[in-house]
């Protein structure tokens, strides 16, 4: 049974796949294992789980790659965003924290797969770089903003906006 009123939303970069969680996710964590690294093209997978019955697809559906016979990894076939992690026999499913509309609200509390943690992982927060994208290159930031094809961080009634051109593979240059 879902917690009354809980509705936490998220989705992929292009907006073809959107979801809502109807309970608070548990065990927010990052996993450094090599399978998670490859699935996310990242140093770790950030995940938190809910009951499958509390996971609602509100637009589209993920493509699935089975990284093992036991493991389904969901992603958007149109833009590639890694979205979900699910053991086929489990009643729970995890979502990628970076795909939440408000990722700052769910901080990881543990790290798994530390046998593959990269040696320089602990040093990342201290790396040089204290400027925003606007400060780094305002002209570039302006160009990106003018043709931003990313779905906004909230649900939309219609997406892409009427009149927008195709954004997928082979889309026409639209600048």
């Amino acid at each position: 049974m879902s917690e009354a009123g809980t509705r936490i939303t998220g989705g992929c970069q292009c907006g073809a796949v959107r979801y809502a969680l109807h309970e608070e996710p548990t065990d927010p964590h990052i996993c450094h294992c090599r399978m998670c690294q490859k699935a996310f093209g990242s140093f770790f997978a950030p995940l938190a789980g809910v009951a499958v019955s509390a996971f609602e697809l509100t637009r589209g559906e993920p493509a699935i790659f089975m990284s093992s016979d036991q493991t389904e990894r969901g992603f958007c076939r149109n833009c590639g965003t890694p979205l979900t992690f699910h053991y086929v026999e489990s009643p729970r499913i995890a979502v990628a924290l970076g795909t939440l509309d408000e990722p700052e609200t769910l901080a990881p509390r543990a790290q798994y797969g530390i046998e593959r943690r990269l040696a320089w992982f602990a040093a990342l927060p201290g790396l040089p770089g204290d400027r925003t994208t606007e400060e780094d290159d305002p002209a570039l930031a302006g160009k990106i903003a003018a043709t931003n094809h990313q779905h906004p961080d909230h649900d939309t009634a219609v997406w892409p906006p009427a009149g927008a051109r195709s954004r997928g593979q082979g889309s026409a240059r639209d600048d």
Partner: protein
Amino acid sequence: MTDVRITGGCQCGAVRYAVHETPYQVGICHCRMCQKAVGAPYFATFTVKNASLEWTRGVPAVFKSSANMERGFCRDCGTPLFNNWIPNDVVHPAIATLDDPSAVAPEYQSGIEARLAWTTDLSGLVAVSTDDAFKGYEALLTEIAATDHQHPDHDTEVWPPA
């Protein structure tokens, strides 16, 4: 062409690449566009010239997150593979897709306007190995290992295996 040859690819092995240049400008980007592309708090990439990147198996799919920004991924398994600002003559592959990501350490961070507060102390979180995490679930871990569909971290002549 130099003697440098550094290989990598996606999780399923449908897309494999080699870079023929020593990676430079290695960094992590926290911007919200990069977060969404990888479903994670930042995108970690290195830089090589376009001419130094060779696709040795398959080709990536591309999503244009803005008019001039291509984000490459594997259409079969979803692995995010690279960023490419089209007007430049360089490309930014994902460090974690290298067969040996430990060889390419980040040197800077950018896009900090969107940096998630919780990224500052991740290394201090309770740390558990995969073997320890699966205590009591050894059969599941054995089954995963026995049916691992991930491409190995080296080039292969034939994939998937016959």
